[in-house]
């Protein structure tokens, strides 16, 4: 936030000086537009939260009510007590945390190897990683399903986790970060007798934990929010993740909007928290990976 202000303010000042009223009007218009767009984005979220706090009867009453008349947590209590939501939550936590840790570790290792080590096939490997990054996950999902079914890992945590460990973007971000480290650091560490593991874990990664935190957060958010693969891999209700499970809630409750939306709000909660707590890091992560995509 502060950085946005810091850069916008001088820009606005100079433009006011050079072109007077017109630009400041333009700036106001753009600000207004941004607010409108933000409101449009925010409204469904707001509506979901409000609705989740209403009684069932109120949710179906005609007319637009922006605040619940008698706020209640019944919807929440219901999904927590009468559905498998706690189990789905556990499943999501387990799979997302493991995916985050393993994929960040593997990507750091892979990125390090491609960036810093000389070995035959390095260029080919790099090209393959770049290429795999171009292929959307949905194009591979059938293959994943056949393979995971073949090794009898459907309806297991491992089955959900394995295909989601393929995260070329994190490898690419790490490789570029390691590329940008001046070679003297590596050389100093070589003279200091560091082996490759020490080089990675005691020099390169700690040099900028920001990169790792940022990547861990977006990996976690991505894993938590993922739907398509967990939906296919976990057909057993006890193995579902939250995102998959709440669609089940929707199906089995009929028209009970408060419950459905209470489930949705709970499902989105960790991600919302992650965004709020690590706002800066998330922005950084998006810039890091956008720099690659763009």
């Amino acid at each position, binding site marked *: 936030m502060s950085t946005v202000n810091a850069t916008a303010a001088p820009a606005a000042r100079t433009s006011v000086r050079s072109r007077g009223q017109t630009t400041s009007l333009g700036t106001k218009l753009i600000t207004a537009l941004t607010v409108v767009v933000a409101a449009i984005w925010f409204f469904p979220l707001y509506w979901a939260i409000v609705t989740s706090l209403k009684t069932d009867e109120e949710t179906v009453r005609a007319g637009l009510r922006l605040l619940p008349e008698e706020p209640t947590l019944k919807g929440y209590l219901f999904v927590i007590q009468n559905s498998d939501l706690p189990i789905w939550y556990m499943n999501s936590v387990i799979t997302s945390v493991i995916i985050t840790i393993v994929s960040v570790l593997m990507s750091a290792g892979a990125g390090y190897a491609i960036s810093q080590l000389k070995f035959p096939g390095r260029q080919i490997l790099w090209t393959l990683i770049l290429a795999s990054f171009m292929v959307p996950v949905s194009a591979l999902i059938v293959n994943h399903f056949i393979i995971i079914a073949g090794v009898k890992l459907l309806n297991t945590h491992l089955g959900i986790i394995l295909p989601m460990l393929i995260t070329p973007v994190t490898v690419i971000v790490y490789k570029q970060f390691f590329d940008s480290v*001046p070679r*003297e*650091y590596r*050389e*100093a*560490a*070589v*003279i*200091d*007798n*560091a*082996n490759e593991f*020490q080089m990675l874990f*005691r*020099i390169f990664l*700690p*040099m900028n*934990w920001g990169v790792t935190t940022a990547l861990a957060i977006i990996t976690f958010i991505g894993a938590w929010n993922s739907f398509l693969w967990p939906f296919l891999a976990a057909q057993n209700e006890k193995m579902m993740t939250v995102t998959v499970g709440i669609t089940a809630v929707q199906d089995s409750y009929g028209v009970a909007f408060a419950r459905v939306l209470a489930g949705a709000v709970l499902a989105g909660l960790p991600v919302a928290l992650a965004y709020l707590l690590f706002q800066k890091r998330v922005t950084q992560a998006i810039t890091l990976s956008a720099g690659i995509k763009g």
Partner: protein
Amino acid sequence: MADIRLVDVSKAYGNVRVIDNVTMTIGSGEFWVFLGPSGCGKSTLLRMIAGLEDINDGEIHIGDRRVDQLPPAERGVAMVFQNYALYPHMTVRQNMAFGLQNIRTPKDEIERRVDSAAKILELGHLIDRRPSQLSGGQRQRVAIGRAIVRDPKAFLFDEPLSNLDAGLRVRTRIEFAQLHQRMKTTMVFVTHDQTEAMTLADKIVVMNNRKIEQIGSPMEIYTRPASRFVAAFVGSPSMNFLPVKAVADKAGKALVTLGDGSVVETAIPTANLPKGGTFTFGIRPEFVRIEANGAIKGKADVVERLGDRTLAYVRLGDGSTVIASDTGISSLDTGHEIALGVDGASAHLFDDNNVAYSAA
């Protein structure tokens, strides 16, 4: 402490040769400086000794071990980089301890060595800071500290002073000299600054364009340059070069005639000179004095007052220019007609291949 021997060492990047058949022996405990213009290969040579670059040909020995195939850590040398390369996430103490931890040095031994290095370099109060919280000079001392704790057989420095401002550079230069006196370890120091080279070195290696031009003590390099390149590179302002004709006098010394017809007696034996008689005459500005009864006449184009001396860019009768010197407090001014006296005993001659000839 150990000597470093290079035998016919060569290096190429792809097809581009950057070091050609270099041979030298750096004596144990000596302070050697590699001096040369940018791109001449001094860093490459230093990095080859450190093991950070492979060599294509030749041998490198440190002490009684051949090291050219050994990894850097096993060569027993420590290196200080131009940008220091301090690990940014570690404190001063951790920076110095890292290398020792990697070879599983006992904790109390690490502690002892770090404290002792910190004391030598007066880093005690900074020991828990990070590099970003240090000034350039302090960072530089930490980099040296990181080298000292390893108790290396030789120190390698790649332009360690070039990131410091002028005043600090002079002070740190003196600290380097003191450090060497105290540690008495072999040191190799790369720079393109001739003052650093002249003040610090036991031996200077002047390099140019992949090759060694000359190895010698600072005064040898200054008074008896082996080539025109060395003569021009060392000394400020640079040596004067004038085309001349040379003949032998009765004593077998070269008698040279400048472009304006004036004759200078030198102390250079003609026996060694190649035939032909045309040479480039070299004389440092401090040996061209402004004298009322001097034999060479000219006009002062530019006068530079440096305080301790005055330099005059003098145009001679034939249009060539020489830099001459006068006392600090001088009445000399631009446009003055003046006479110059040349100290022929300190002159040099250079042949067509830029090989230098000096007084015996």
